[in-house]
């Protein structure tokens, strides 16, 4: 039995908008799960329903073998970190951390000990008597974290806690959150639209889109083994390259062709394609780092149109069938704009998707 279970969870707002179309999710104790998706995909709604801030339209939320659908937020015993930090500006840092403890009827000494302990963990001992208005964004975030770990909560909910920080601070606070998780082994649900955050933090990533779950899996699954076109497009910077192509059979070999694009199909999904897709259109997706230059069996010839050096790697842009393809290279061989090259790919690293449903062809 999973620790937290969402069963056919559905949310329809009074104005008729369905934010969540019945999702199923099981989370084990101690897991760090990231809900990832573009804005409006229902990830924050899911989190707020678990916290009790939104009413459940349909379905069930089961936490620790107990249905918590209709419990007040205060009775659910979860802690939450908000996007705006939500530290109360009229209380000192000490009072902010102590407030949930007071509500839980801790004794005065217990409160002081707990606040001192968590302030130590979050390195805000020096600011306990200051007001949040006097603190920087990163410090406020630490106060929010300290407040959340001070109580012995069943669940740790984080609603885009890093999005208000500047880029550099974001990385350090990210590491800090991961440390906190590893030390406390708390069950955590983290909502973000930033895939870098998601991949850095998650034990498992839940990719969501338009109120549905697109894929659940660890970083490798979600990145290299996408379940749907949406995931392949959403994950990765730059995202995967796509080409709509028709499947034909020549001399017992399968090819996906479109204009100058001609890819020989291979790999485990070959049989499925042979069985169902001959003469039909499919979508071929190849990640930029899997596109090779001048290798065996090229699928297209193209001219380098864009060179984007990124320091550690270089991104090259080509025009294939009137769409820009991106290629990611690690070696430092200088390539000039305008150079003609042949593109190829490892057949095992090419993904195929059904054009109608957007689902992976396996």
């Amino acid at each position: 039995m999973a620790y937290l279970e969402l069963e056919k969870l559905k949310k329809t707002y009074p104005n008729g908008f369905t934010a969540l179309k019945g999702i199923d999710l099981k989370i084990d104790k101690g897991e760090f799960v990231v809900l990832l998706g573009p804005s409006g995909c229902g990830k924050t709604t899911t989190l707020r329903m678990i916290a009790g801030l939104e009413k459940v339209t349909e379905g069930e939320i089961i936490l620790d073998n107990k249905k918590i659908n209709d419990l007040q937020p205060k009775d659910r015993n979860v802690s939450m970190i908000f996007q705006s930090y939500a530290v109360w500006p009229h209380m000192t840092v000490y009072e902010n951390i102590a407030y949930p403890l007071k509500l839980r009827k801790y004794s005065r000494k217990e409160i002081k000990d707990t606040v001192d302990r968590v302030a130590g963990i979050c390195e805000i001992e020096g600011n306990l008597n200051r007001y949040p208005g006097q603190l920087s964004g990163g410090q406020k975030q630490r106060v929010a974290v300290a407040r959340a770990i001070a109580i012995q909560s069943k669940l740790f909910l984080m609603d885009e806690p890093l999005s208000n920080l500047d880029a550099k601070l974001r990385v350090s606070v990210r590491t800090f959150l991961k440390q906190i998780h590893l030390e406390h082994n708390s069950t955590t649900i983290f909502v973000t639209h930033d895939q870098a955050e998601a991949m850095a933090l998650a034990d498992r990533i839940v990719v969501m889109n338009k109120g549905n779950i697109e894929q659940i899996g660890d970083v490798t699954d979600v990145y290299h083994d996408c379940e749907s076109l949406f995931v392949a497009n959403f994950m990765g910077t730059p995202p995967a390259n796509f080409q709509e192509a028709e499947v034909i059979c020549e001399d017992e070999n399968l090819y996906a062709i479109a204009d100058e694009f001609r890819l020989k199909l291979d790999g485990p999904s070959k049989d499925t394609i042979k069985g169902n897709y001959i003469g039909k259109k499919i979508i071929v997706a190849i990640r930029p780092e899997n596109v090779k230059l001048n290798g065996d069996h090229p699928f297209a010839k193209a001219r380098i149109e864009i060179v984007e050096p990124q320091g550690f790697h270089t991104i090259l842009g080509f025009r294939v069938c009137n769409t820009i393809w991106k290629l990611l290279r690690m070696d430092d061989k200088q390539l000039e704009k305008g150079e003609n090259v042949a593109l190829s790919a490892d057949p095992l690293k090419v993904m195929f998707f059904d054009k109608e449903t957007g689902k992976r062809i396996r």
Partner: protein
Amino acid sequence: MPAVFIKNTIRRTVFTLIAVTIALAVIIPVAYFVSISFASIYEAYQFPARIFPSLSYNAKFIYNASDDNFSLHIEKNGIYESVKTDSDSKSFRTYLLNQLNVNMEEEHIRNLMSEAKTSNEIDLKLKKDIFRNYKIFFILADGSIAALVNSLQAAAWTIVISLLLGGTAGYTLARMNFRFKETLNLSLLVVRMFPVVAISLPMVIYIMKMNVYDTPFSLALVYSVPNIALTAWITSSIFKGINVELEEASMVFGAGRIKTFQRITVPLAFPALVASSLYAFLAAWNDSIVALIMTNENPTLALVVYRTVGSSSISNIPAAGAIILLIPSLVFTFIIKNYINQLWGNVQI
């Protein structure tokens, strides 16, 4: 270079002129008003009026041997002019008290007379009873202490009613979504447009039926009508400014709705609540028209001042009454000044 210099000079001159004009337009009438409230009738008839109230007069007491009487001379611009000639000490005392606000015992005057007979002329410094106008106001305006209490009660009730109803309405408008919300917003403004007199006339009938006619509470009911709308406006904008996540955080971390409201929402909205209470206070405190309609035996202080103005030919005593009316407002504003300052844009939420 000269062009820039001239431009700057002109700009600075114009700015200074505007600043000075505003300062004069505000300060001179107030200074005149304060000064006149301390002036005696003799001073009030002088032209130009004094900017600062005087504390004493330089005077001469002269014995006229030919007529066997005495005359009082008062210095005006370095010249002594005769203001009163008489032989009777009692009539001198009356004159000093009523016209000059100088309280001098008759015996003292008789001593001065005998002294003047021997030395012919005495230099005097007549000390003014500076608060005499205020004392007279309380004597003239019968029951002004009771009126002061009535005013305070009416103001207190107005604050309580407007904050309770207006604050709740403001919170609802800020946090809840419902149909016709925009219409409700606008209709609040319409309530504010009503002249209070128009409300108070029909209200009198209901007030009489409720058996609360001629009480501060009934006044507060009328004053609250426009103030509830105003309070709802002020507080709803402040409640909107309070991030909902602050309240949600409180609920997630173990507080119920009511506790959250008490511990998080109200403290954060406190400056707005205080500012609204100032508006409610001023509306109740300064009104005399509604009080004229709605009270009989128990007038408010503003009404008493209004009546005194009508019964007085010279402005010094009504001015004193107006200053008395002003003091509680000033005290109240001073107490809450920190919160008012916060509302001017220093608030950090």
